Structure formats: structure tokens, C-alpha cells
């Protein structure tokens, strides 16, 4: 209908235009307005309307279902929960039967199973209510969903599990969990064998997802658990970070899944050192009665794993890992110092200096090997240190010392870098120049002087301070001087005599290498004579002396054996190019 109306309108407009009732521009305007008005609902508006409609329909559905739900009995509710759970378990079994492990279908089944498990548990706990505890619910859900991660080799399930652990830690789970924060580590350690499973199947995509998820989860969970702690457990953080970083270094550097381990570990280790360089962070350590046994146990285990990784796991690279593995050792020593009652500025100074050292080490690593990430990281470390001292809440007298040391080290490093660069450039130029022989150097000089000579008029016009005649009269001098400027210092002292042939026709550098002429064979076959025919040696000398021009037949043996005396070279006295002042060479 609308289409017919549009056609009729179009005909009308054409008719009006032909009759002259409307101009051509007017017809175009009318068509434009019509198109705008009959273009239908714009897409964004349609999306908004659809979203609103779906939301209203969803709310109505939930409202209706909830009304029905409140009329149902306990048996129906728990039966529904068990039925849903059983259905998802059968789906997991079907996925295993069809070998869907590590596939998209397997991922979907595993994620659905975990979500249904959560729903079923919630229904049961709400129906048979004896109190709602979010942290207990999340812990139970995470533990019960763990097996399906392994059974279906699902990375999506790992993400859900990690989220469950994070929410558990955020809801105060470690407070009432058996072992406190150690339970959180147990929950995370339960994921570690999954790494081996993925590696055995060489599933690189899931390995990457796993490594990123686990690294982020570990540090986020650590932060959440530390919120409730009486002190900042930066010793534990440092050991954990070093262990994770060394785990990353034990993985092949070309593999993508080692990146989060290395960089998160590096960042956390430097962060823990940064925390330990602030005075406020030590107050809690000095004030507490004693460390919890779980904290000590986890720290010791992590130390042992660091040693094991350093001895066996870390490949090829050595100094970087060792440098970062030293952070927990330093913090442990500082902690012992503080715990023994010797609270002084020593821990702050040591931590700050070590952090500065790490910052410069990373910068140098980045500059030398061209890895800009290392340079940026080093700069960030130094900036964070300075910022922490200024905005950390308590300004220590160490601030100026650190600032001065940083500046000094920066200046020294810049100078060293520039010196080494200049030396390297000089050496490279030297090496390049040594490739030329005397002839090519002279030829280059000639070429340069000729080029300068051609450019001289331009320079004359450019520099009005210099008289034009004077410059025009001494092109060779200027050219030679420029050539001398271009030459390195060690060549300026050497004076090269010029040959006559080259003065006449200076050969370009390309002609200096002349192809060697192929040598003609001078081999003369031996002639056997009858001994009677051979003349006696008494008569021979006079004839042999006359036969000296037959010398070219000599090269039967070594060409260097008995070289023919060279014709004496005609001596040419060298003339200084300044003596003639180049006037006769025009």
C-alpha cells in the first residue's frame, strides 16, 4: 500500500515538474522530505523499543513464575533442582562420550553445568533455609564445579571457577574458612594440575586463557584477602610474585602463555619491594603478635618452589630471574630485622636502593636489547618510587637521597649510553674506511672536490659575507678542505701522492676495480732430443744470453720463485695541490 502511494506521489511530482508548477529544485526537496518521512523507524530507536519490550516481557515472565513458585511445595522445588542438576550431569557424560573435551561444545556443556549447579544449590539452600551464607555457598559451588573443568577440559569453566573464588574472597570467605586465607590458596592450587593437562594436549589457546585467568585471579584474590589483614603481607606477595615469575621463565619464551606469569610476577615483585620501601607498611609488621602459621607455611613452600625453579625450571636467562628472586630474600631479611625489634631505616634504604637498581637494570635491558617494554617498566618503577615517597603519606628523610641517587644514576647512564654509541659509530666508520685502498680514497676525494667545485657558485650566493671572487678562485682549496673535514682524524695526517694518470682522468670509484684479464696458458710441452743432438755446454752461454727475451716461457714453476726484475719506476715528485692553487687545472 505504501509502495503504491509512493509511486503515485512520484508520478504527481513529475507531472507538476513538467507543468512547471514546481521547479526542479523544489521537486528534489519534496522527494527528499518524502524519503525522510517514509523512511521507517530508525535503527537505534528500534533497538531501544525492542530492548524495553523484552525487559518488560522478561519482568512479566519472572513475576508470573514467582507467583507460581510461591505456591509450590518443598518437594517440587528440590525435585526441580535435582532434575536440572541430573540433566546437566547427563549432558557432561554425553560430552565425554562424544569426545567433546577441549571443544566449543565441551565448553558450552561445562559452563552450563556449572551454572545449573549454582542454581540447584541456591534453590536447595533457599528452600531448606537455616541461614544464608554467601561465602559458604560460593566455596561449595566452586569445589563442586571443579571436576568438570578437568573432565571436559574447559577454559570457560576455569573462568567461572576463578570468578567464584574471587567473589568468595570478596565476601569475607577467608575469615571463616578452615585455615583462613590458606583455604583460598588451596582453592587456587586445585587449578594447577589443569596446566599439565592442557600442556599434554598441546592446547595453546586454552593455555593462554588459563595462564591469564589464573595470574589475574591469584593477584586479585591476594589483594582481596589482604584487605582484611592487620598488616600488608608484602613478604608473602614477594615470594608469590617471584615464584610466578620464575614459572613464567621456565616456559619457552616463544610461548604466549608464559607472558602473564613473567610480567605479572615481575610487577608484583617490584610492587612488594615498593611497599617495603615505605615506613607505614612496616608498622603493622612490627605491631602484630606473630604471623599466622598458614602464612609461614605458604611462604616457606613458595621459597622452596623458587629455589627449585631457579635450579631446574629457568632456562637460558639467568640474571633477571635471580635479581627478582632476591626480592623475597631481602624482604625476609628486613622482616626478621624489624620483628627482632631493630626497627630502623635500614629496611627502607635497602628496599629503595634495590628498587632503583631494578629500575635501572630494566632500563638498560630495554636499551641494549631493544625491548621497549623493559625500558618502560624500569621508568615506571623509578617514577612509582618517587611518587610513593612524596605521596605516601609520610615523607622520609630518604626522599632527597633517593632523588639525588636516581638523578645521578640517570645522568651517568645517559652519558655512558651516549659515549658507547659514539664509540660504536666511530668504530663502524673506521671499519668502513679501512675497506678502501689508497686509490679509492683518492678517487673519492677527487669526486668530492669536483662536486664541491660544482656547488661553489651556490654557496657564494648563500654567503654574502665572503667575497665572490675569493671563493671562486679557490675552489680546490675549499673542496680539499671540505674533503679534509669529511675525513676521519686519523686520515688527515696522511698525505697521499697523486699519480699523473689519475690527474688526467680521475676514475670514478666504480672503475677502480678492474676485472682481471684471463691469463693465457704459457705451458710449453717438453721436447725430447737425442743426447747426441744436445750441444755441449761450452758453446751455449753466448747463445743463451741472446735468447733472454724467451723469458715468458718460464712460468713452469712458482710465479714468485724467481721473479723477474721489475723495470725501474719513474720517479714522480709529489706536488702539493696548494702549490699550483689549481689555477692551471681549469
Amino acid at each position, binding site marked *: 500500500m505504501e509502495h503504491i502511494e509512493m509511486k503515485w506521489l512520484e508520478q504527481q511530482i513529475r507531472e507538476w515538474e513538467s507543468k512547471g508548477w514546481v521547479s526542479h529544485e523544489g521537486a528534489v526537496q519534496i522527494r527528499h522530505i518524502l524519503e525522510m518521512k517514509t523512511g521507517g523507524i530508525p535503527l537505534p530507536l528500534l533497538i531501544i523499543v525492542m530492548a524495553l519490550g523484552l525487559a518488560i516481557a522478561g519482568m512479566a515472565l519472572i513475576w508470573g513464575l514467582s507467583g507460581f513458585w510461591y505456591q509450590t511445595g518443598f518437594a517440587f522445588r528440590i525435585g526441580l533442582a535435582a532434575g536440572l542438576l541430573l540433566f546437566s550431569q547427563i549432558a557432561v557424560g554425553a560430552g565425554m562420550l562424544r569426545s567433546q573435551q577441549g571443544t566449543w561444545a565441551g565448553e558450552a556443556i561445562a559452563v552450563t553445568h556449572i551454572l545449573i549447579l549454582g542454581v540447584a544449590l541456591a534453590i536447595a*539452600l533457599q528452600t531448606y533455609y537455616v541461614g544464608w551464607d554467601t561465602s559458604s555457598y560460593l566455596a561449595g559451588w566452586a569445589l*563442586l564445579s571443579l571436576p568438570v573443568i578437568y573432565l571436559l577440559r574447559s577454559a570457560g569453566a576455569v573462568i567461572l571457577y576463578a570468578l567464584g573464588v574471587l567473589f568468595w574472597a570478596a565476601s569475607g570467605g577467608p575469615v571463616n574458612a578452615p585455615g583462613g586465607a590458606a583455604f583460598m590458596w588451596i582453592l587456587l592450587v586445585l587449578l594447577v594440575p589443569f596446566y599439565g593437562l592442557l600442556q599434554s594436549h598441546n592446547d595453546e589457546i586454552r593455555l593462554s586463557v588459563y595462564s591469564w585467568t589464573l595470574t589475574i585471579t591469584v593477584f586479585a584474590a591476594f589483594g582481596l584477602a589482604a584487605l582484611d589483614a592487620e598488616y600488608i603481607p608484602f613478604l608473602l606477595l614477594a615470594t608469590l610474585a617471584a615464584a610466578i615469575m620464575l614459572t613464567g621463565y621456565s616456559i619457552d619464551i616463544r610461548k604466549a602463555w608464559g607472558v602473564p606469569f613473567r610480567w605479572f610476577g615481575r610487577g608484583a615483585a617490584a610492587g612488594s619491594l615498593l611497599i617495603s620501601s615505605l615506613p607505614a607498611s612496616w608498622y603493622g609488621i612490627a605491631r602484630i603478635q606473630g604471623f599466622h602459621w598458614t602464612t609461614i607455611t605458604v611462604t616457606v613452600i613458595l621459597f622452596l618452589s623458587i629455589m627449585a625453579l631457579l635450579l631446574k625450571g629457568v632456562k637460558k636467562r639467568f640474571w633477571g630471574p635471580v635479581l627478582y628472586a632476591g626480592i623475597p630474600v631481602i624482604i625476609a631479611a628486613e622482616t626478621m630485622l624489624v620483628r627482632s625489634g631493630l626497627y630502623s631505616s635500614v629496611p627502607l634504604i635497602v628496599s629503595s636502593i634495590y628498587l632503583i637498581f631494578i629500575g635501572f637494570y630494566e632500563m638498560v635491558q630495554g636499551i641494549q636489547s631493544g625491548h621497549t617494554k623493559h625500558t618502560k617498566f624500569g621508568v615506571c618503577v623509578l617514577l612509582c618510587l618517587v611518587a610513593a615517597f612524596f605521596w605516601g603519606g609520610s615523607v622520609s628523610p630518604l626522599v632527597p637521597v633517593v632523588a639525588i641517587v636516581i638523578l645521578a644514576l640517570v645522568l651517568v647512564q645517559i652519558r655512558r649510553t651516549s659515549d658507547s654509541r659514539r664509540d660504536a659509530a666511530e668504530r663502524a666508520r673506521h671499519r668502513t674506511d679501512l675497506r678502501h685502498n689508497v686509490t679509492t680514497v683518492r678517487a673519492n676525494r677527487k669526486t668530492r672536490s669536483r662536486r664541491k667545485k660544482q656547488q661553489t657558485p651556490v654557496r657564494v650566493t648563500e654567503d654574502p659575507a665572503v667575497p665572490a671572487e675569493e671563493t671562486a678562485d679557490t675552489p680546490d682549496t675549499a673542496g680539499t678542505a671540505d674533503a679534509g673535514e669529511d675525513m676521519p682524524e686519523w686520515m688527515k695526517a696522511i698525505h697521499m701522492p697523486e699519480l699523473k694518470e689519475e690527474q688526467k682522468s680521475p676514475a670514478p670509484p666504480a672503475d677502480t676495480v678492474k676485472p682481471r684479464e684471463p691469463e693465457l696458458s704459457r705451458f710449453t710441452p717438453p721436447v725430447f732430443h737425442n743426447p747426441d743432438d744436445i750441444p755441449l755446454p761450452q758453446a751455449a752461454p753466448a747463445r743463451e744470453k741472446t735468447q733472454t727475451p724467451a723469458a715468458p716461457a718460464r712460468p713452469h714453476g712458482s710465479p714468485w720463485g724467481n721473479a723477474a726484475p721489475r723495470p725501474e719506476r719513474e720517479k714522480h715528485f709529489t706536488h702539493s695541490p696548494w702549490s699550483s692553487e689549481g689555477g692551471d687545472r681549469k
Partner: protein
Amino acid sequence: MKLPDMTLSSDSRVKWFVLILVSLIQLAVLGYIGWRWHNITVDGIPYQWQCVPRLEVSSFGTDYIRVVFPQDTAPWMDVAEPEEHQTIYVHIARDDKGMMEIKGASASKPLIGGDYMEARVVSYHDGNVQFQVGFNRYRIAPDKADGIYDITSGDSVIASIRMKKGLGVIEGIYVNGIPLEASSNGAAMEAARSARQGDGGSRTSGRSRIIESGMVPPKEE
């Protein structure tokens, strides 16, 4: 017809065993949650505790009301101060009238013979700990919850609780000895409906009424 190969390798046999075991554990957890509740309601020790019922606000309605227990502080019996959200054990007993008495609170369970209830620390001040118990809901049909509006400050509102191993279940709430459900509009409507049904039976016997019982206000002030 070719049958699929149903033989299992030792590795896959372990996987199937794990799946079956995990499935059973998951279902058993659901079963345990239900059994625990039933066990408390059957075997739990009955207590009566003063309470204040509150309507739960929800966009889609609820089938329970919130129950607040005014006696939510107890003297702290330990040396170490409790943390916020920490699980503690409130030591309880019964007086002569069967009402609950709070003896104190501790981070550990009482010795043999002493009853207790699990609770979470809300705050701690001057040797007294404020706590919150888990059993803070009473399941009630939505149309029978409006009896809360009739409760006045002078009324005696008692929650009947069953306690076992620190966990509790509210069996009923009584306002001046009358169940909360009985003082609701829903109950009055039901009574009226049943009365109407009774009247219907009598109508068949020839008696007539001018006013329908459903039109009568459900409660007399």
C-alpha cells in the same frame, strides 16, 4: 547393524568413575541440605525466643518474612577479641517458661551438655558482642503475611525455634499465643470461604442469607 565400541580404556574408565562419583556427590549435597533441615525440625531442641517480624520488600514478592531477634548481644567469653563477620557460638539455655536465655558468646563451642547457636559477629564493644543468627526467615504464604500490620508494641511475639548443632529453624511465630498466619486477611478469607461452603450446604437445606460472608470485613477491630 554396527554397534559402537563400548570398551573403555583404563584412563577413560577413571574419567567415568570420577564423573559418576562427582554426580553422586553433587546430588548428595542437595539431599544433605534437605535432610539437615528436616533433621533440625524433627530432632532439634525447641526454644522460644522473643522476635520482631518484618515484611520483606521484594519486586516480585516473597514467600517468607524477615525475623529480627532483639536479644542480639551477649557477653564475650574469650580473651581474644572477635573479628567482624567471624562465626561465633552463642551459648544458650532455657528458663522455667521455656524461653531462651543467652549465657554468653565464644569463638569455640561449649562443652558437652551445653547448647549453642551459630552466629556472625556484627560488632564488638566493651566486652559485649553483637551478633546475628542465620535463621532469620520464617516461611509464610504471601497472602497470610499481612498479620504483621496488626502487631502492636504491647503484643508478645514469640518465635518457636528448633535448634540442633548450632543451626536453627523457625517453626512458627505466635502473637499473643496465636499463630501469625491466623491473624491475617488470608486466614479470614479462608475462614469466610469455608463458612460460605458451610452456608452453601445449609442453603441447599433451605436457609438464605442477605449478605455474602466474603463481603464482610475479614477481621473485627
